[in-house]
């Protein structure tokens, strides 16, 4: 018997997997899953319905599941007792909102910036966009430079956390 607590958005599912059946939030549940190829496509077989689910696991326990065109993030915790630790989204850093090319970096460490000032110019596809300071503060570190290819959520600029 194994217990899993799965968070999907605001919803929480406690799932118990036993030898030949399942409990979902304590209720018995009849379902079977089969991998259709080695590339993430699965079918969930309910007693009267087959559902396609495409699974990708980004990191341990974090899944992105596509069902009926919806992209759903599911986070699995093993055992029922752990609670999810959500890190507060900080505003101490400027991150790349998408993958792309850094065109220009307008600040250096030590610069004082106002909330909304353009710190970095990034280009992706046909668009150029100005990335602005999330708050007023002092630039502590610059992690990128013009010409760099950056990934989504890559940290570009850090602000001094003592400023506020």
């Amino acid at each position, binding site marked *: 018997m*194994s217990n*899993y607590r*799965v968070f*999907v*958005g*605001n*919803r929480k*599912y406690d*799932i118990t*997997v036993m*030898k*030949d059946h*399942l409990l*979902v939030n304590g209720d018995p*549940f*009849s*379902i*079977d*899953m*089969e*991998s259709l*190829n*080695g*590339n*993430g*496509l*699965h079918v*969930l*077989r309910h*007693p009267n319905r087959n*559902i*396609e*689910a*495409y*699974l*990708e*696991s980004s990191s341990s*326990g974090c*899944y992105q*599941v*596509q*069902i*009926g*065109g*919806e*992209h*759903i993030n*599911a*986070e*699995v915790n*093993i055992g029922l007792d752990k609670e999810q630790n959500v890190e507060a989204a900080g505003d101490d850093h400027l991150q790349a*909102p*998408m*993958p*792309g*090319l850094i065109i220009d970096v307008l600040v250096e460490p030590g610069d004082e910036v106002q909330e909304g000032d353009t710190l970095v110019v990034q280009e*992706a*596809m*046909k668009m*150029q966009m100005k990335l602005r300071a999330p708050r007023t503060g002092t630039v502590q570190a610059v992690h990128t430079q013009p010409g760099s290819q950056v990934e989504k959520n890559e940290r570009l600029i850090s602000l001094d956390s003592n400023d506020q």
Partner: protein
Amino acid sequence: MKLLIANRGEIAVRIIRACQELDIPTVAVYSEADRSALHTRYADEALPIGPTPAAESYLNMERLLEAASKTSATAVHPGYGFLSENPDFGRAVEEAGLTFIGPRPETMAELGDKLSARKAARRANLPVLPGSDIPLSQDLVLERIEPDLEYPVLVKAASGGGGRGIRLARSAEELIDVVDSAREEAKAAFGDATIYLEPLVQKARHIEVQILGDGRGKVLTFGERECSIQRRHQKLIEEAPAPDISPAERECIHQDAKRLGESLHYRSLGTVEFLRGEDGRFHFIEVNPRIQVEHPVTEMITGLDLVKEQIKLAVSGELNLAQQDIRFQGAAIEARVLAEDPEDHFLPTSGNISYLKEPGGPGIRVDSSLYQGITITADYDSLLAKVIAWGENRQAAIKRLHRALQEVQIGGLKTDVAFLRQVIDSHPYQTGNIDTSFLDQIQLSDREPEESVTRDAALAAALHIHRKRRNGNRIDRSRRDPWQQQAWREQLATR
């Protein structure tokens, strides 16, 4: 004839398909990022033309002409985007003794400058939007000389087009703010800082007419397309015919487009774009002197293959169609599947497409260059595939497109597919009540997915991790593990 395709992605594949059906050998070119792309595998020959950045490959005329010379290609098709509207490229191709499959370079130059294009349209008696035909001078103090300007107003790059190089100003203050960056952007994007102002037509519909000219004054029209579903001037969903316009209106813009083409002695395919105001008046905006992304909707309602006709015309110099051969049946809608995340401001997504299923069945056409295993990067535009549905009428086409979009499975990155379905399901779209502000106004339903869907997602994730823990990856790949067999027997037993 041997045709070099100076492009990539789905349009390169589209052109190669036409050539294969015409028995014309093809040459593909590719940047480093595209070195295994589908168009390189479908073409008879494939040559590298440089590193990944477009400026060093697909925009590099010298490399393209070298590739043509090396393969003894006799003609060049520019596709759309990249060099397709660049008169210098057309000229260089023709000077190298090759056939350029597109308008004459003079025509491209005249239409590429949006101000001279407006003059040409006015000369041919097309309704042109009121506003200055002259560029905004560098040192213009706006408030002083345009005191009666109405806002909002569009600031457009004279060398822009296809939705690029357009900025909106809602007030004189914003206008001053926007002018400089518009000039900068125009200079950077098109090498020409010239900008001009154009009144914003409120609640406008974007309707365009497809033409094909023989270069000596004979021009055919292939009906119109409605392309009002746009985001930031980039079309997302297009259809033919335009819903809900009168036969007289239709005839009028077809004749307008024909007249303009005739007066230009237009050669090859082109699209004459109009805005239709709330008052029902049409205004010429520009001509796109090339094949359009959305050409398949016209093909599906006419049964004609525009790319083949374009190539045949370039071979023979003669149109082998007459206007009465161009007849219309039913309705067709195209939806652009993009590597963009509608839940995150339509920012581009990237990744490896680990699983792919394109839709099929009656009335569905898919133009794509995807394959299982392709890596999508942010190097080029975000178009992944075009799903086009034909139906006996608009309602049948919408239903079919909806059905087809449900079948699309792209694993490995987020796309706009669910958003496309929301758009075509929306009441305004269903009733044809659309204008170019549609996508700005639509509220992405912020609802959470249905409970049964999130529960299934949770179950899938839990079962996946459970099996991985118990059996490593073994069970995940097995089709016949005991747990599944057991479940099967139970399903049968409990029926």
